[in-house]
């Protein structure tokens, strides 16, 4: 799958409270959550972001809470993927489970500047900076995680397994 968009750049340790503050967690409606996506990191983000845009961040993106509302808010805001130096553990799992593509690349996170147009070949893990005409490589996704993505997220994967078990 090819993902392409304009980039928005954030720093290190962007936490889940910054991605979706707890004051909005009395709902789990993706459209409502999207209205407040990244609000405490950049209050204007929800109005600026365009479908397909890409978030670039430093180390430990998504640290803090287990709230799946964080990747849900990012996905529902139209962001096509997140590229960071590293991801917090629970956020990493949650992103795969709900089908938000994420890529770990120190090189890309450092070189890409806000506003650059970036294209990502998600299968190959190749990140192209169309503005600067540079190419970066993302850390390969474990095969098991690729199976989850192929099944449309964890629920699809589990449903397939259960169906398989019934037929066997």
């Amino acid at each position, binding site marked *: 799958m090819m993902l392409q968009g304009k980039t928005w750049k954030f720093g290190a340790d962007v936490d889940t409270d910054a991605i979706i503050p*707890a004051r909005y967690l009395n709902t789990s409606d993706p459209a409502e959550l999207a209205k407040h996506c990244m609000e405490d990191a950049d209050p204007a983000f929800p109005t600026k972001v365009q479908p397909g845009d890409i978030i670039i961040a430093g180390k430990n993106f998504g640290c803090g809470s287990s709230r799946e509302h964080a990747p849900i808010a990012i996905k529902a805001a139209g962001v096509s993927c997140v590229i960071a130096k590293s991801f917090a553990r629970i956020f990493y799992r949650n992103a795969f489970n709900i089908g938000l593509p994420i890529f770990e690349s120190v090189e890309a996170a450092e070189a890409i500047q806000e506003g650059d147009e970036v294209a990502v070949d998600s299968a190959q893990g190749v990140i192209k900076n169309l503005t600067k005409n540079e190419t970066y490589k993302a850390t390969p996704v474990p095969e098991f995680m690729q199976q989850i993505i192929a099944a449309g997220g964890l*629920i699809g994967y589990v449903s397939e397994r259960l169906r398989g078990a019934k037929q066997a």
Partner: protein
Amino acid sequence: MAMTITEKILAAHAGMDRVEPGQLINVQVDLALGNDITAPVAIREFERIGVETVWDRERVVLVPDHFVPNKDIKSAEQVKGLREFARKHQLPHFYEVGRMGVEHCLLPEQGLVGPGDLVIGADSHTCTYGGLGAFSTGVGSTDLAAAMALGETWLKVPESIKFVYYGELPRWVGGKDLILYTIGQIGVDGALYMAMEFTGPAIEGLGIEGRLTMANMAVEAGAKNGIVAPDEITRRYVEGRAKRPYTFYQSDPDARYAQVIEIDVSKLEPQIAFPHLPENTRPVSEAADVTIDQVVIGSCTNGRLSDLQLAAEVLKGHRVSDNLRLLVIPGTQDIYMQALREGLVEQFIEAGAAVSTPTCGPCLGGHMGILAKGERALATTNRNFVGRMGHPESEVYLCNPAVAAASAVLGRIAAPWEVE
């Protein structure tokens, strides 16, 4: 083949003789936990899977604790969803307001988790149960949904870092200070994807509540789990309490660690984490100029009975400063009752504090103690991110309960010995 305690628990739950760091494994879970923020999403996803019932109704635990007693209509609807799901599936472990507690205080207290267990919970502080010698870790709602259906989950076996705490703990220094100091040393991603194993004489001398506090904040260093090997102190806590059989695991002496970090605790001061990350720690004596508007004593980190006893000891004979408000939130109804019987609640109220029914409310900026623009809070909670307790331009400082109490008296961050 030598293994760490974490590797042994994972191997046992994967039905394997041994596991190695980096390996992806499927494990049986002993318990799956959700709260009023995460369970609504998990229930929605569970219903998409297409199974009729949860895998084991005794092992799915739902604790509405974040926005309760319900702060508004939307949060009431969320809890109603949990309540209806619990009734439909006849879940015995749904904990209603009045009979509940902050989840990570409640589960150990009720004997729902024990040594050697493998627990996942849709709450990042599920790592708390490592204080009992269990493997426990936070996951998202979809992972919880899958576990509610299958009774299993997948995990990557983490590498372990061994922390050895030696020396005698100074007065007023406890588990909270050890973990804040440790996070200050290694950073908020210092143990990313790893297990933090807490060992050494200072840990052996720490009560079970201090150990739970330390394991609770492992996630603030990015860790998958924090763990303390169970011992006689653990046995005394779980005996007569545990609802299921338990197993004591120990790391082998020659187990492999990614790193071993030794910390001399004998000269440690109580620690303060400055905004806006738990890694921004300083000794309390270097924080004395910070005036504060609100003090919160409670949460899954420090809302247990020993925390309230410590706070009451410091508050004794003093009044809360006119310039701030002190909120005290017992972690569970049992803790609340104990605090009543011991006269702690009376003491808090006489000192000028507000005492609340159990809730996570202020810790996550949910309700009960939201900060206005420019306000500062000192809290025994676990996170001090931007906007954590309210307005994005407010500030949260983290500390132990004794420091919180002393600071409530003096109206600024203060060491307990300043009010003795």
